[in-house]
């Protein structure tokens, strides 16, 4: 068994009404419950607010960002434990973000 990180990205400009939001949250809950029952969740992780700070470079400059309109903004993460990368990717197919045109990046944890 190895650990893999799911990085969730929603399509930019994705918006939902409160009722839609509720339904979406229900789907996430159901998916997580399923993964939990299969013993695949190492750490369920957290959703992330858009809009934070980006600290970069040797100058250590601090800028506002990333912004919701930016492509490829990560809006949450989960740590799973599976047999291999193929199984992790297979599990990621159940993620509700895909129905909204988003994506799940599946990255193996690097053992240093």
């Amino acid at each position, binding site marked *: 068994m190895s650990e893999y990180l799911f990085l969730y990205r929603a399509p930019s400009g994705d918006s939902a009404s409160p009722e839609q939001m*509720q339904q979406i*949250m*229900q789907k*996430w*809950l159901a998916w*997580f*419950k399923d993964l*939990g029952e299969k013993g695949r*969740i190492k750490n*369920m*992780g*957290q*959703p992330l607010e858009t809009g934070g700070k980006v600290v970069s470079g040797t100058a250590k400059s601090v800028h506002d960002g990333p912004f919701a309109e930016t492509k490829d903004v990560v809006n*949450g993460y*989960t740590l799973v434990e599976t047999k291999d990368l193929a199984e992790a990717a297979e599990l990621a197919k159940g993620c509700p973000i895909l129905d909204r045109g988003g994506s799940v990046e599946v990255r193996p944890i690097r053992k240093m």
Partner: protein
Amino acid sequence: MVATLTRVLGVHNLALVEDVVQDAFCRALEMWKFRGVPDNPSAWLMATARNRALDVLRSQRTARKFAPGLGYLLESEWTLAPAVDELFAADAIKDDLLRMMFSCCHPQLAEEARVALMLNILCGFSVDEVASAFVSGHAAIEKRIIRAKKVLARSKHLFNVAVPADFAARLPAVLRALYLLFSEGYHGASRETAVAPNYATKPCA
């Protein structure tokens, strides 16, 4: 409200449950004084209790263990609010009341203790109100209720009404407790018999 909160926070956190309920009612008193009673007071109270429960879960999730079986769902913002909402949904509430009634009929508690517990926790009776229902003194009833709550809090989890054998085994006790609950209301031997009929019709939480 108590029953659902106990399901969310865990029976071992019964004292915390009661704090949250108190909070909700205090908030109601403050808010309703200025803004008037809302159209749907019980929905307002439940929503307040739900929000307070979320606050408690968020601030104390490292310090405390909450409802068994829900653990990991309460640790992450992905699932915290929807999981709590599921438990506050109408059908779940009816199940919670039933579960709570069965839990109060704990085998280690005497019949009178079980009824006193149900009156206090589920029907929201003050110690004095329970005492007059039992034609007993305040101190004796208070001790009885405190001891009963300790026994309840020590049980590892709420009674599981879905297991047929356990359900059947405890049903006679629950029926008897309900009978006593209602018979005290109609034929209470207390001096204030005029007040007693109120008990039978008083809405349970």
